[in-house]
C-alpha cells in the first residue's frame, strides 16, 4: 500500500536575493512500513522537501502533488493539515535538545501530543506516555516522565522525540538527520530503534540524511538529491552499491569508507547556487562523464534493469572512476628515521581540583595520556565527543597547560616555557580547526588572515609578506587574486584551505588537525583530505589527526590511538587495529560504524545500549 506519493513537486522559496529553487520536478512514493532514504549534501533541498510534506514551509511557492493516504496535502486547508500533523504524519529532527521545549517535562510534551488529536483523559494520556517511553528504551519511565529535557543525555532525548512522534501510531514518520548530532555508538542504537518501531507499528519512515553509508544498510528505497533535483531513485541496495548516476558514484567514491588508501577520487568544484534557473544538468560542471548535451539540455530519465532511475544523459550506468594510481603509497622516505617529533608522557588535566569551593576532586578530563609521533607520519586520534581528544590537542599545541605530565616538541619540553620561547615554539607546531566558519575572523581579509602568522611573529614585511601569502594561497589551491576578499565570500571547503594556508605560513614541522573535515560535505571532504595528504608528501610534515570519524582517520593515519573517557584504550598500526581490535570499546566503535552491523539491529544493539547508557 502506498502511503505517500509525491509527484512533480517544485518548491521555490522567495528570499531577498531571489527565489531559491529547493526542489525541481521531484517525484517518489513511499510504501507502508518502508524505510525510504533521501540522501544529499547541504543545499540539495532534502530538508526543505521534508518540511514541505509536513506543511511547514509558510510563504514557499509549491506546485505538484503530495498525495498522502489518497489526499493531496497541497490542497488541504491549514486546519486539515494541522489535524494530520503529529497524528498521521510525524517528524523527528536533528538536534533532540533544541527540539524539545526546555520548560515543559517530557511527559507534558507527550501528553500534549496525545490530547491534541485524541479525546482522552489526562490520566489515560499519562499512562500511554509512560508506556511509549518504556517501549523506546527509557528506563523507569514512570519516574522519568516528570523530568525536563535537559536531564536526559543526547541519545535518550532522541528516544523521547521518537516516543512523542510515534505515540499516535502515525502512518508516516519523517526523520530529518535523526542521528547526525549523536555519537557513532548511539547512532546505531537509534537506527535500530527506528527499525524496530516501524515493524512494530507499521509506520513508514522517510529518513533524510547526508550519510550514504547509513542509508545503504537500512533503506528499502533511496533517493539521491543534488541542487533540488532527484538525481537517482531506486532500491536501496542498488542505488548505494551499483549507482547509475555519476553524482551518486562520485559521492560513494569520495567517502573514505572503502579499502582505499591514497588520494580519494573527489568531485571537483562546488555545488551550484539554488538561486540560478537551471536549464541543463545541474551536475554537468562537476561531472567526470560530461558531454556537450549535458550543458545545454535538461537530462532525460533513464530506467535500468535493477529498478534504478537516473536523471542523466548517459545511456548506461555510471562507471567507477579509475582508481588514481596509489601515488607512492608509502612515502616511506621520511618515516624510515625513527625521529620522534612529538612526545607526550602521562599528561593529566583536571578542572576545579584547585578551587576552594569544589567539594569533590574536580573533573578529570585527561587521565594520563602518552603518545609519540614519528617524523613525517600521521597519528590518528579517534574517540567520541567528550573523550578528551580536542583537549589533548590543545595541550600538545601549548594552548592549555596540563595539570601534570610532559609534552616534548622536537625534544624540547613545552611546559612552563617563558613567553619568549613559547612564542618561538609556535613556529614549530600549528593547528587547523574544525569549524571553517568560526576559525576565520569574518572582519578581516583573507590576505590579512593568512599573513597573520607573519604579523604576529614579526617576520616578512610589506611586499615580501604579500608574495609569501600569495605563494601559500597557490600551494593550497586558492586563487591568489582573491587576496582581498572576506572569508564570507568563500565556501566551506575553500575556507578550510585558508585555514591550512595559515597553518603552513611559518613552515612548521607539526600540524594538528582537529576534526578538519567534519563540517564539510563528502565531496568537499575528499578534496581537503587529498590536499592534506599531498602537503605531507611534499613538505614532509608530521600530523596529529583528530576525528570522531573512523573512516576518515583510517584513511589518513599510519597509526591510530583510540580514546575513551580521557584515556587511551588502544593504540596500534592502522590496519592491525582495524582487523584485530583488542579493546572492547574499539570493537564497539568499529561495529557501530560498520553498516552491516546496523542491519542486524535488535539484540546486539540493545546489549550495547545497556552497556553504554549511564
Amino acid at each position: 500500500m502506498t502511503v505517500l506519493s509525491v509527484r512533480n513537486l517544485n518548491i521555490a522559496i522567495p528570499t531577498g536575493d531571489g527565489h531559491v529553487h529547493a526542489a525541481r520536478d521531484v517525484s517518489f512514493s513511499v510504501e507502508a512500513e518502508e524505510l525510504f532514504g533521501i540522501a544529499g549534501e547541504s543545499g540539495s533541498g532534502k530538508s526543505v522537501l521534508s518540511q514541505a510534506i509536513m506543511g511547514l514551509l509558510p510563504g514557499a511557492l509549491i506546485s505538484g502533488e503530495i498525495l498522502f493516504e489518497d489526499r493531496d496535502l497541497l490542497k488541504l486547508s491549514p486546519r486539515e493539515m494541522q489535524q494530520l500533523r503529529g497524528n498521521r504524519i510525524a517528524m523527528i529532527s536533528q538536534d533532540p535538545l533544541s527540539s524539545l521545549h526546555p520548560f515543559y517535562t517530557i511527559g507534558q510534551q507527550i501528553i500534549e501530543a496525545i490530547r491534541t488529536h485524541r479525546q482522552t483523559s489526562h490520566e489515560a494520556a499519562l499512562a500511554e506516555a509512560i508506556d511509549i517511553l518504556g517501549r523506546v528504551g527509557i528506563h523507569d519511565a514512570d519516574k522519568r516522565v516528570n523530568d525536563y529535557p535537559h536531564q536526559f543525555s543526547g541519545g535518550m532525548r532522541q528516544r523521547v522525540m521518537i516516543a512523542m512522534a510515534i505515540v499516535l501510531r502515525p502512518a508516516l514518520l519523517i526523520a530529518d538527520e535523526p542521528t547526525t548530532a549523536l555519537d557513532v555508538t548511539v547512532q546505531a542504537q537509534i537506527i535500530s530503534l527506528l527499525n524496530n518501531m516501524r515493524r512494530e507499528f507499521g509506520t513508514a519512515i522517510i529518513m533524510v540524511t547526508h550519510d550514504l553509508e547509513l542509508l545503504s544498510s537500512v533503506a528499502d528505497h533511496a533517493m539521491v538529491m543534488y541542487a533540488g533535483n532527484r538525481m537517482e531513485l531506486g532500491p536501496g541496495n542498488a542505488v548505494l552499491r551499483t549507482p547509475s548516476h555519476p553524482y551518486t558514484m562520485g559521492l560513494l567514491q569520495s567517502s573514505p569508507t572503502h579499502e582505499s588508501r591514497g588520494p580519494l577520487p573527489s568531485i571537483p568544484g562546488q555545488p551550484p547556487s539554488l538561486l540560478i534557473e537551471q536549464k541543463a544538468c545541474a551536475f554537468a560542471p562537476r561531472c567526470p562523464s560530461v558531454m556537450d548535451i549535458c550543458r545545454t539540455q535538461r537530462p532525460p530519465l533513464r530506467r535500468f534493469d535493477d529498478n534504478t532511475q537516473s536523471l542523466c544523459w548517459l545511456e548506461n550506468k555510471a562507471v567507477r572512476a579509475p582508481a588514481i594510481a596509489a601515488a607512492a603509497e608509502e612515502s616511506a622516505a621520511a618515516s624510515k628515521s625513527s625521529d620522534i617529533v612529538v612526545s607526550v608522557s602521562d599528561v593529566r588535566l583536571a578542572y576545579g581540583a584547585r578551587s576552594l569551593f569544589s567539594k569533590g576532586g574536580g573533573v578529570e578530563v585527561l587521565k594520563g595520556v602518552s603518545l609519540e609521533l614519528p617524523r613525517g607520519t600521521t597519528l590518528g586520534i579517534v574517540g567520541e565527543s567528550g573523550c578528551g581528544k580536542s583537549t589533548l590537542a590543545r595541550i600538545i599545541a601549548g594552548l592549555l597547560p596540563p595539570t601534570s605530565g610532559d609534552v616534548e616538541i622536537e625534544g624540547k619540553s613545552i611546559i612552563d616555557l617563558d613567553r619568549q620561547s613559547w612564542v618561538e615554539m609556535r613556529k614549530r607546531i600549528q593547528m587547523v580547526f574544525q569549524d571553517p566558519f568560526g576559525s576565520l575572523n569574518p572582519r578581516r581579509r583573507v590576505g590579512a588572515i593568512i599573513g597573520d602568522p607573519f604579523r604576529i611573529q614579526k617576520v616578512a614585511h610589506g611586499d615580501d609578506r604579500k608574495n609569501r601569502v600569495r605563494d601559500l594561497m597557490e600551494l593550497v589551491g586558492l586563487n591568489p587574486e582573491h587576496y582581498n576578499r572576506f572569508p564570507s565570500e568563500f565556501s566551506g571547503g575553500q575556507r578550510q584551505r585558508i585555514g591550512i594556508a595559515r597553518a603552513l605560513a611559518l613552515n612548521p614541522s607539526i600540524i594538528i588537525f582537529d576534526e578538519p573535515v567534519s563540517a564539510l560535505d563528502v565531496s568537499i571532504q575528499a578534496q581537503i583530505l587529498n590536499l592534506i595528504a599531498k602537503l605531507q608528501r611534499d613538505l614532509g610534515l608530521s600530523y596529529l589527526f583528530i576525528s570522531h570519524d573512523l573512516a576518515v582517520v583510517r584513511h589518513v593515519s599510519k597509526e591510530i590511538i583510540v580514546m575513551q573517557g580521557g584515556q587511551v584504550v588502544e593504540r596500534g598500526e592502522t590496519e592491525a587495529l582495524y582487523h584485530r581490535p583488542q579493546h572492547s570499546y574499539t570493537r564497539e566503535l568499529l561495529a557501530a560504524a560498520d553498516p552491516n552491523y546496523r542491519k542486524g539491529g535488535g539484540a546486539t544493539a540493545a546489549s550495547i545500549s545497556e552497556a553504554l547508557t549511564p
Partner: protein
Amino acid sequence: MTGEIKQRSSFELTMRRLLSDRAGLVSLSFILALIAVAIGADAIAAITGHSAVAQFHDIGLTPTGLPVPPGTDFLFGSDQLGRDVMVRLAYGARVSLSIGVVASLLAALIGVTVGLVAGYFGGWIDGVLGRLMDLVMSIPVLLCMLSLVAVFGSSLALSVTVIVFFSWTTMGRVIRGQVLSLKEREFVLASRSMGAGHLSIMVTDILPNLGAPIIIYTTMMVPTSIIFEATLSFLGLGIAPPAPSWGGMLAEAANNSIYMFAWWLVLFPGLALLLTTLSFNILGDALRDALDPSSSKHRLRKKPSKLVEAAS
C-alpha cells in the same frame, strides 16, 4: 555560491542599505540641521537681536504680564520673563546635543573597555566587573543625583558625570555578552596558537567584530542621555538657570501651569526634544538594519534562506 557573483565590500553594502532607508535619511538630515542650529545659535541671536537671557518687558510681555504668542517680534513667542523662545531653543540645542553626544561617547568608551576586559578575561575579573555593573544598575539614579545636587549644587559637569556613570553599563553588558561568544570562536584560538598576545587579540581579532554593536548602541545612548539631561533640568538639578536648556524651559513652563495659557512654551521645546530623541532612535534603528541585517526587519526575508542552510 560565490564564484562569479562579484561581492561588494561590507562598507559599500552598509551604505547602500542605509541610503535606501528613507526614515533614517530624514532623521539624519534633522540631526544635521539641529547641529547647524546649535552651532549658529549666536547668529540667530544676532539676527533677531535678542540674546538668550535678555528680558523684554515691553514687547515680550502683554500688559497683564503674560508671555506673547508667536508673531513677528518673537517667531516662537516669548516666555514668562519676556525672553525669546526661539533663541533660547537654539542655545538649548547646544546643551542637549553636547551633553547627549559627550556623555554617550564617554559612556561608550567606558562600557566597551569594561565589557571587553570582563568578557575576554572571564573568571574573577568578569565576576568583579559583572557585579559592578549589576551594582550600578540597581542604584536609584535620580535619587542619587538629588543627593549630590543637595550637597554640591547643580552643574554641567555633575550632570555629565552622573549620566555617564549610570549609562555605561548598558554598553558594558552588550559588549561583554558579544565578547563572551566571540572569544570562543576558533579564530581567537587560532591567533593565540600563532603566538598573539592578549592585547593583540583584543584589538585586532575581537574589536573589529564589535563595530556594529558599538555604533548602534552609542547612537541609541544619545537620546537616552538627552532625555536624562532634560529630566535633570526639569527637576531643577541640571544646568543652572538662566542659562537656557530644553528641560529647564519646560520646567519653567510647568511652573504654576503657565503653559496652559501659553501653549508655545511647551510645544516648541517639547517638540524639539521629542524630534531630537526620535531622530536619534530612528537613526539607531536604521544603523542596526544596515549594519546587522540579520536582526529585526530583515529577519523575515532571511528566514527562508536559513531554512535552505539548514537543508544539510
